[in-house]
């Protein structure tokens, strides 16, 4: 279609607004409230244009292009009108600096003092220099403001973590309110009051913490002024450089713009071109990436313990020492630990070191408990190729989305945005099967609250009902139906009711919904898959998915679980369990331990020689004999594979801090000290020459990809014929006992990086999401005489854990919900449902 803007004929494809069409063709129309991710608001009125045939001026941001539309964007009337509207906007915003005749020279002559209580001009504003209002004033060429300006005299809100809100600078464009509602689905922010008293705030003017804010920072990023500013960069000024890299703080790998000055990160923002995150991030990527890098616990020099004293040494000397020591142990006396947050390169070199040089099979790989690994292993055993790769389309195309047992909005906030988009704008139905009520459950059409840990009977019950009602339906397609039917004979619906606490009617209703035509996506996380009975749950889920046009989507925990899993895929499928190693350490059979990842160690039985490779000074480093400091997230030079199989490069945005090195470099140098024939790797591409040869799934990682990036997924063999997996006979889900009268759910916790627990490091994070919190139903708490903030000891088969009480009536009575970091557990499983006794702490 053709339209005419300012006399210029423009060819347009698809549905577009006048503003979009103009911008794409280099015609600038000033606007403050418009944002590419948001539904037009037409509030600021700066983009008013003249449209032929319309009596009124129309806002370009919400006027759609039609064939032959004739638009004028800069008639003298419009220019005058815009100036006047901008004057009105500026009468509510400190404007002295904006129209100051000296503003051009200001930077040369005035120092910038931002440590002020009130921002009364741009030179005092943290956003000076990256403010869209400043840009618009320049673009429109405003030189004076005809109205006396009004300072709202509102208190600056500083009590919430991560960012401050100064509504004296707000121009009420509503972008923050809209992104919170339209894109993030939270509506934490809203307009309150009306007319001249209108301000942005929360319901009942509560703090953001209390109003349910997830601190994703989306509002901060869309704010055109300095009203919302990140606390930690208030006095920082402008960055010198911006580079892109991926965030490695969870299993998704969001692309981030990292803004740096010198060798320091000032802040990180989600990149608009991020293939997985589409301009969005979560609290970790947005506010914690720099905390992970510039953390006071960082170790910057290799250190060796000499006579109970730590001595800083050079790499050469330290690694030579480690090699010398390791040579004194027999293969069977050594064990290694890896981190699922290590790059593929690091993983590969570590495997070479363990298997090829130290010749030990004692390599602890936490990824074996990751949902994707459990799923893959189970399928492998059944001889099925399900196809593990997935991207946003898998969720986008689903008409029904089932979330099983995971607080997806907290653990996988970016994947949740895809679910939300499907539910909110594409009328997909959300079904939540979980014991606690999660905050995102408000979007669910159905929420099944079953007894904790009884997922298998819930899902198998549904399977049985579908099988019964659909004799020749969709259930008939896959192989192995007879075996399924035979096993399901042994599952009585009466028992299902008893074991799950659900009524048959509720299960029937859900069955109805799942049987309706249209693709179903089943999302599950560590909460179910990583449990000891994870495979049983996944079997039930798999069978159900075959009956309902469904597909299983495993959600991940750590940044490179999938990549490390692919490295191991052609192996013998055996792995050493953490429990075993711990026992052998206790028995003094393991004498040397090389820990390149965090684990729970029996510290009393410390091995003779302990090497810890870590970026941070933690309990394990303190117990070590040698500490080898590695780079952290944004300094990392390596390749990561997200849970959906997308291969991404993490390119360093900084020089390694101090004398730190990438893990692969350390391991390679150590290997060379142990065995001189080992090839030296100068850069990651050297390692890939070998990975490509050895690991077919990752053979797509070419030299060109390493240089330029691109959309690349793990190579998979085409999905094979699906078949039902007989579920066997029903087991007994955990039920409370006299000794341990509560059921304890430990949900997935992704708030740590290489042993650094965010909520322990940062008060703001702790206020928002405390790793050590235990959620209790208020009634249970009152019975136990526990109050908010009290210490409670969880006594269970997995050991005793100290937590802080929080009251939450969304937790089912009789249960206690935590999200303790995986490495707190001796068996390295991410999740548990256990019976537990609650005891007041000291």
């Amino acid at each position, binding site marked *: 279609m053709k339209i005419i803007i300012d006399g210029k004929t423009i060819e347009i494809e698809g549905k577009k607004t006048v503003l979009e069409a103009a911008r794409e063709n280099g015609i600038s129309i000033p606007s403050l409230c418009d944002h590419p991710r948001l539904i*037009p608001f*037409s509030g600021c*009125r700066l983009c008013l244009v003249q449209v032929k045939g319309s009596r009124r001026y129309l806002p370009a941001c919400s006027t759609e292009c039609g064939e032959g539309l004739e638009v004028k964007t800069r008639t003298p009337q419009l220019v005058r009108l815009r100036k*006047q509207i901008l004057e*009105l906007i500026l009468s509510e915003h400190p404007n002295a600096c904006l129209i100051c005749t000296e503003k051009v020279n200001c930077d040369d002559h005035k120092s910038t003092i931002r440590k002020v209580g009130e921002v009364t001009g741009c030179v005092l504003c943290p956003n000076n220099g990256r403010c869209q209002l400043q840009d618009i004033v320049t673009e429109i060429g405003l030189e004076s403001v005809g109205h006396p300006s009004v300072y709202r005299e509102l208190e600056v809100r500083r009590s919430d973590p991560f960012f401050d809100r100064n509504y004296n600078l707000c121009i*009420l464009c509503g972008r923050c309110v809209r992104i919170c509602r339209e894109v993030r689905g939270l509506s934490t922010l809203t307009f309150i009051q009306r007319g*001249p008293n209108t301000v942005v705030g929360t319901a009942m003017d509560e703090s953001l913490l209390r109003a349910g804010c997830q601190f994703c920072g989306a509002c901060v990023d869309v704010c055109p002024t300095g009203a919302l500013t990140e606390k930690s960069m208030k006095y920082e000024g402008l960055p010198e450089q911006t580079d892109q890299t991926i965030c490695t703080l969870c299993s998704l790998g969001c692309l981030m713009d990292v803004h740096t000055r010198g060798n320091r990160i000032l802040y990180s923002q989600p990149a608009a071109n991020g293939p997985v995150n589409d301009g969005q991030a979560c609290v970790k990527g947005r506010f914690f990436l720099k905390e992970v890098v510039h953390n006071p616990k960082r170790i910057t020099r290799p250190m060796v313990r000499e006579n109970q004293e730590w001595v800083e040494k050079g790499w050469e000397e330290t690694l030579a020492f480690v090699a010398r020591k390791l040579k004194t142990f027999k293969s069977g006396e050594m064990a290694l630990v890896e981190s699922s947050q290590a790059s593929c390169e690091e993983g590969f070199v570590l495997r070479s070191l363990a298997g090829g040089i130290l010749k030990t099979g004692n390599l602890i790989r936490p990824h074996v408990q990751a949902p994707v690994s459990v799923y893959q292993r189970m399928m492998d055993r059944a001889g099925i190729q399900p196809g593990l790769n997935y991207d946003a389309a898998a969720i986008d195309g689903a008409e029904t989305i089932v979330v099983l047992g995971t607080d997806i909005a907290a653990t996988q906030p970016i994947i949740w945005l895809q679910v939300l988009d499907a539910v909110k704008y594409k009328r997909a139905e959300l079904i939540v099967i979980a014991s606690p009520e999660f905050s995102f459950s408000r979007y669910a059409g159905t929420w099944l609250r079953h007894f904790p840990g009884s997922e298998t009977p819930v899902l198998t019950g549904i399977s049985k009902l579908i099988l019964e009602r659909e004799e020749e339906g969709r259930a008939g397609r896959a192989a192995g139906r007879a075996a399924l039917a035979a096993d399901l004979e042994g599952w009585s619906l009466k028992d299902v009711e008893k074991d799950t606490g659900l009524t048959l009617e509720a299960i029937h209703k859900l069955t109805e919904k799942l049987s309706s035509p249209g693709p179903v996506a089943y999302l599950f996380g560590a909460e179910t898959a990583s449990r000891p009975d994870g495979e049983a749950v996944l079997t039930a889920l798999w069978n159900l998915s075959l009956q309902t046009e469904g597909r299983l989507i495993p959600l991940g925990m750590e940044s490179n679980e999938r990549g490390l899993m692919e490295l191991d895929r052609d192996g013998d499928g055996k792995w050493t369990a953490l429990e075993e190693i711990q026992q052998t350490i206790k028995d003094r059979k393991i004498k040397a331990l090389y820990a390149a990842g965090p684990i729970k160690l029996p510290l009393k039985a410390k091995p003779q020689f302990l090497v810890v490779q870590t970026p941070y000074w933690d309990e394990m480093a303190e117990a070590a004999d040698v500490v080898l400091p590695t780079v952290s997230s944004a300094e990392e030079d390596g390749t990561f594979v997200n849970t959906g199989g997308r291969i991404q490069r993490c390119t360093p945005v900084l020089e390694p801090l101090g004398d730190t090195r990438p893990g692969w470099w350390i391991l390679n140098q150590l290997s060379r000290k142990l065995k001189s024939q080992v090839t030296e790797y100068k850069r990651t591409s050297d390692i890939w020459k070998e990975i490509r040869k050895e690991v077919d799934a990752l053979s797509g990682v070419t030299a060109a990809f390493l240089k330029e990036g691109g959309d690349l997924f793990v190579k998979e063999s085409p999905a094979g014929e699906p078949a039902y997996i007989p579920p066997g006979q029903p087991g007994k889900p955990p039920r409370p006992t006299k000794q341990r009268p509560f059921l304890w759910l430990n949900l997935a916790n992704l708030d740590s990086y290489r042993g650094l627990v965010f909520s322990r490091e940062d008060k703001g994070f702790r206020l928002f999401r405390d790793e050590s919190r235990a959620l209790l139903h208020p009634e249970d708490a009152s019975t136990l005489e526990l109050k908010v903030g009290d210490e409670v000891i969880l006594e269970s088969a997995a050991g005793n854990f100290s937590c802080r009480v929080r009251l939450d009536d969304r937790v089912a009575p009789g249960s206690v919900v935590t999200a303790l970091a995986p490495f707190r557990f001796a068996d390295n499983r991410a999740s548990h449902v256990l019976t537990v006794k609650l005891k007041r702490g000291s």
Partner: protein
Amino acid sequence: MEDKAISHFFKQDGAHTLAFYLNQNGYEQAKKALKELTPEDLLNQVKAANLRGRGGAGFPAGVKWGFVPQGGDKPKYLCVNADEGEPGTFKDRYIMTYAPHRLLEGIIISCFCVGINTAYIYIRGEYENVAQRLETAIDEARAQGFLGKNILDSGFDLEVYVHRGAGAYICGEETALLESLEGKRGNPRLKPPFPASIGLFQCPTVINNVETIANIPLILHHGPEWFCNQGLPKDGGTRLFGVSGPVKKPGVYELPVGASLKDLIFTHAGGMQDGKTLKAVIPGGMSAPILKPDEIDITLDGDSLMEAKSMLGSGAVIVIDEDASMLEVLRIVAEFYSHESCGQCTPCRVGNPWIRKTVKRMAEGKGRRGDIENIRRVANNILGKTLCPLGDAAALPILALTEKFKEELETSLSD
């Protein structure tokens, strides 16, 4: 006396009860519509009657109903706008107080015509007793089988709900009303899409004023031709005019569309109190531009008032006498719109308070030369530049007042 006027039941004892209404052949038209007529017949009759909306904008009701897409899997809704927030307007309160069943009958017929099974009456929060009366009427009607499932064995279902507003003028704007009804902040929506296609809960929605709907049974009863003959060919029927101010008999008067404004004030409302002289008239609620005494020899219909650069609006006639200070009138107008702006778009949110402050300063005797020009400049920046009609509703009276009473206003300015 035969029921030939909206105001037929006004001020009669017990007029609001179902028994009274049935005694006056109430619900006969609904019966006829449901049992004998098709929705198409009904739509044609309403179109032929040239019934224009009584809320302010004066859009033909039949045409509006015709915009609602037929079929589709989404439910459709009727919202009766009983927010009646325009200062000076109180006619709908009369209808709902004295003839709630006439309104309900109109709702039944309208819903049947458009294929609607759920209707909401969005009533202003202050009308608490009126809302109660409506609730009672709905209960009575439901008990009698005029509402609910399978009305009068016709197979047609209808539920009517009363929803009370929370005191914002903007919620009388139809899209803000929808937002409010959905439980959200009452901000206006962008148009298009229009409510007829995407309205309440994203479904096709008809929004009509109380008086508009209350006319429907009369159209059916006496025929569209009769209705047209009552008023003007393109603007049929009668209208309720609420006269307020220092007239001898303020109140609601039902006159044919096209009656004389002068007659309304000097004949029906009895002329000015205490021999005072008329100074100005606001002819259609506070947002209508003010008329000077030499401009009131005019007929009360949309077109002729538009010609006089004012508007018929909600038909609320505010009479102003010689004692009134026009600065005070201006202050009240500016105060009101500044307070009632929703805060979404710049010109209205910032411009109106700015005008209010300037007028307040003038009222305090601190006016300065150039104030009136500045007020007019800002008002002109509001007029036609805002997202919803509230901007125009504020700017129009301010522009008219500052133009027509410039000299008087200037006397308050020091240099």
